[in-house]
C-alpha cells in the first residue's frame, strides 16, 4: 500500500503546484502584488520538481541531478547577468529551451514505442512538432535580437516552401501515429519540424520579433500541455494550457498595439521594409539644451515620451534625475508610454522601473493621450514612429491607423535625437517638422545631463 500513498502525495503536490501557478499568475497581473506572484509560482515549481523524484519506476537519478544542475546553473548565471534592455531575447531563449524540452519528452516517448492509444499518440507527435518549431524558432528570434544575425533571409517562394514543409511534417506525423514506424522516420520528422521553425522565423523582421516570441511562448505552453496528456501529468496539462491561452491573448494584444494582424506579422515581413517616404513640408528647427531647461522649469506640465533609443543610450537614470528636479520645482511631470515603446509591450516600464521611476507617474497611452492638449512641453526622447502624426492623417502611410501618442497636441514639442534619420520603420516623422517642434540633437544621456545642469543653474 505504500506505493499508493506515494502516488497520492505526488498527485496532491502537483495539484498544489497548479494552484500556486494560477494564483501566482493572477497576482502578477497587478503591479502591487506582482512581486509576490512570481514567488508563489516559484514555490509551486520547487514543490513539483522535488516530488517528482519520489516517482516510482524511475532510474537515472545521478544523470537527472547533473542535468538539472547544468541547465539550472547556466540559466541562473545568464539570467542574473542579462541587461534589462536585452530582456526580450533572453525570454526567447528560455522559452526555446522549454519547447526543446517538450520535444525531447515527445522523442523519448516515441522512441520507446510505448503504446498510449491513438489519441495520446497524436498528442505526443503534435507536442513534439510544436515544441520543435518553438525551439528552433525561438533560437532564431534570440539570434536576431541579440544582433548575431543581422540580415533577414528570404528567397522566392519561401511561404510556399514553408507550407510544403508543414504538410510534409504533418504527413510524417500521421505516418508515425498510425504505423509505429522506426527510428529513422522519427528522426526525419524532428529534423523537418526543427527546420520549419527556422524557415518560419527567418523572414520576420526585428521589429515584429516580440510578437513572434509571444506566439512561441504560447506554443510552448501548448506543447507542454500535450506532453502532459501523454505522461498523464495534471500539473503539466494545467500549467501548459493556462500559458497557451494567456500567451495567445498576449500575442493578440501585442499585435493589436502595433496595428497588425498576427497573419500579417507572420507572412508579410513589414518589420524591415522601408516605407515610401512621403515628402514632408517644412524644416527641422534645432534648439539648445539651456533653452529647453528654462522652458521645462517654468512649465506647469511636462509629459515625457521615452522610446527604445533612450534605453540604448542608458539615459533613463538621467531622465529620472531631471524629473525629480522638475517635480521639486512644482512641475507636473508624467511619463507617457506607447504600448510598443521599447522592444515589447511593457518593456519600457521595466526599463523605467530599473531607473527607479515609480509606476504611478507612468501612464498608458489611453490614460494620457487626452492630457497632451494641456501640456506645456512634450519631451520626446528616443521615440519616433509612436508619435508620428501621419498615423492619424495620411492614409497612404504604412503606419496609418496605428494608435499613437498625440504629442503634437502639446504647446511645445522637444525631440532629443541623435541625427536627422528616419525611425525604425524608415518612415519620415511629420512631428519633427511642425512649427512648435524643436530638435535637440545629441546622445540621449548627454542631453539629459545638460538639461539637468540647465535646470539646476536657474
Amino acid at each position: 500500500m505504500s506505493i499508493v500513498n506515494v502516488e497520492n502525495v505526488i498527485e496532491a503536490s502537483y495539484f498544489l503546484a497548479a494552484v500556486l501557478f494560477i494564483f501566482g499568475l493572477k497576482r502578477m497581473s497587478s503591479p502591487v502584488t506582482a512581486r509576490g506572484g512570481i514567488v508563489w509560482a516559484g514555490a509551486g515549481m520547487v514543490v513539483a520538481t522535488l516530488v517528482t523524484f519520489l516517482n516510482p519506476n524511475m532510474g537515472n537519478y545521478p544523470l537527472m541531478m547533473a542535468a538539472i544542475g547544468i541547465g539550472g546553473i547556466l540559466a541562473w548565471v545568464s539570467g542574473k547577468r542579462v541587461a534589462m534592455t536585452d530582456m526580450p531575447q533572453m525570454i526567447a531563449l528560455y522559452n526555446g529551451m522549454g519547447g526543446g524540452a517538450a520535444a525531447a519528452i515527445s522523442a523519448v516517448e516515441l522512441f520507446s514505442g510505448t503504446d498510449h492509444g491513438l489519441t495520446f499518440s497524436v498528442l505526443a507527435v503534435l507536442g513534439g512538432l510544436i515544441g520543435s518549431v518553438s525551439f528552433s524558432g525561438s533560437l532564431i528570434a534570440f539570434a536576431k535580437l541579440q544582433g548575431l544575425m543581422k540580415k533577414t533571409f528570404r528567397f522566392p517562394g519561401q511561404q510556399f516552401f514553408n507550407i510544403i514543409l508543414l504538410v510534409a511534417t504533418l504527413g510524417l506525423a500521421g505516418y508515425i501515429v498510425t504505423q509505429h514506424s522506426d527510428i529513422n522516420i522519427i528522426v526525419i520528422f524532428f529534423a523537418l519540424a526543427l527546420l520549419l521553425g527556422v524557415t518560419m522565423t527567418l523572414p520576420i523582421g526585428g521589429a515584429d520579433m516580440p510578437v513572434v516570441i509571444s506566439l512561441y511562448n504560447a506554443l510552448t505552453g501548448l506543447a507542454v500541455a500535450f506532453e502532459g496528456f501523454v505522461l498523464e501529468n495534471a500539473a503539466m496539462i494545467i500549467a501548459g494550457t493556462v500559458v497557451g491561452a494567456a500567451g495567445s491573448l498576449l500575442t493578440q494584444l501585442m499585435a493589436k498595439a502595433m496595428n497588425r494582424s498576427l497573419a500579417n506579422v507572420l507572412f508579410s515581413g513589414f518589420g524591415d521594409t522601408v516605407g515610401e517616404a512621403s515628402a514632408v513640408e517644412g524644416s527641422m528647427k534645432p534648439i539648445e539644451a539651456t533653452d529647453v531647461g528654462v522652458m521645462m522649469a517654468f512649465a506647469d506640465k511636462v509629459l515625457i515620451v521615452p522610446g527604445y533609443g533612450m534605453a540604448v543610450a542608458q539615459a533613463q537614470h538621467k531622465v529620472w534625475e531631471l524629473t525629480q528636479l522638475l517635480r521639486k520645482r512644482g512641475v507636473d511631470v508624467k511619463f507617457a508610454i506607447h504600448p510598443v515603446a521599447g522592444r515589447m509591450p511593457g518593456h519600457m516600464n521595466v526599463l523605467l522601473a530599473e531607473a527607479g521611476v515609480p509606476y504611478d507617474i507612468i501612464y498608458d497611452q489611453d490614460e494620457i493621450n487626452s492630457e497632451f492638449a494641456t501640456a506645456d512641453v512634450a519631451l520626446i526622447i528616443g521615440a519616433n514612429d509612436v508619435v508620428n502624426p501621419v498615423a492619424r492623417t495620411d492614409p497612404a502611410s504604412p503606419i496609418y491607423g496605428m494608435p499613437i501618442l498625440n504629442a503634437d497636441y502639446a504647446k511645445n514639442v522637444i525631440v532629443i535625437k541623435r541625427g536627422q534619420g528616419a525611425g525604425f520603420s524608415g518612415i519620415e516623422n511629420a512631428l519633427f517638422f511642425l512649427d512648435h517642434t524643436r530638435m535637440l540633437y545629441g546622445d540621449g544621456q548627454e542631453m539629459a545631463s545638460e538639461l539637468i545642469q540647465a535646470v539646476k543653474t536657474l
Partner: protein
Amino acid sequence: MIDGFIALYIFMLAGFVGYEIIGRVPAILHTPLMSGSNFVHGIVLVGAMVALGRAETTLEVTIGFIGVVLGAGNAVGGYVVTERMLEMFKSSKEKKS
C-alpha cells in the same frame, strides 16, 4: 488516472483561466507577465525528468538528459529574469511610508 474526457475538461477550463487572468492586465505588465508565463511552462522540467527516469536505451537517455537540461534552463532562467523585473516595480507612495 486521467482519462480522455476528464483531460478534455481540464484542458478547456485551464484555457479559460489563462484567458481570464490576462484579460484585464495593464500594458505596463505585459513584458513581466510574458516572462512569468514563460516561467510557468518550465513545469516541462517535471515531464522531462519522468521521461529521463523511464529511459532505457542510450538514445533515449541522451535525449532525456538534454530534455532535463533544457527544462531546468526554462524554469530557472524564467524565474530569475521575471523576479528581477518585478522587483523593480515600486510605487512612489511606498517610499514615503
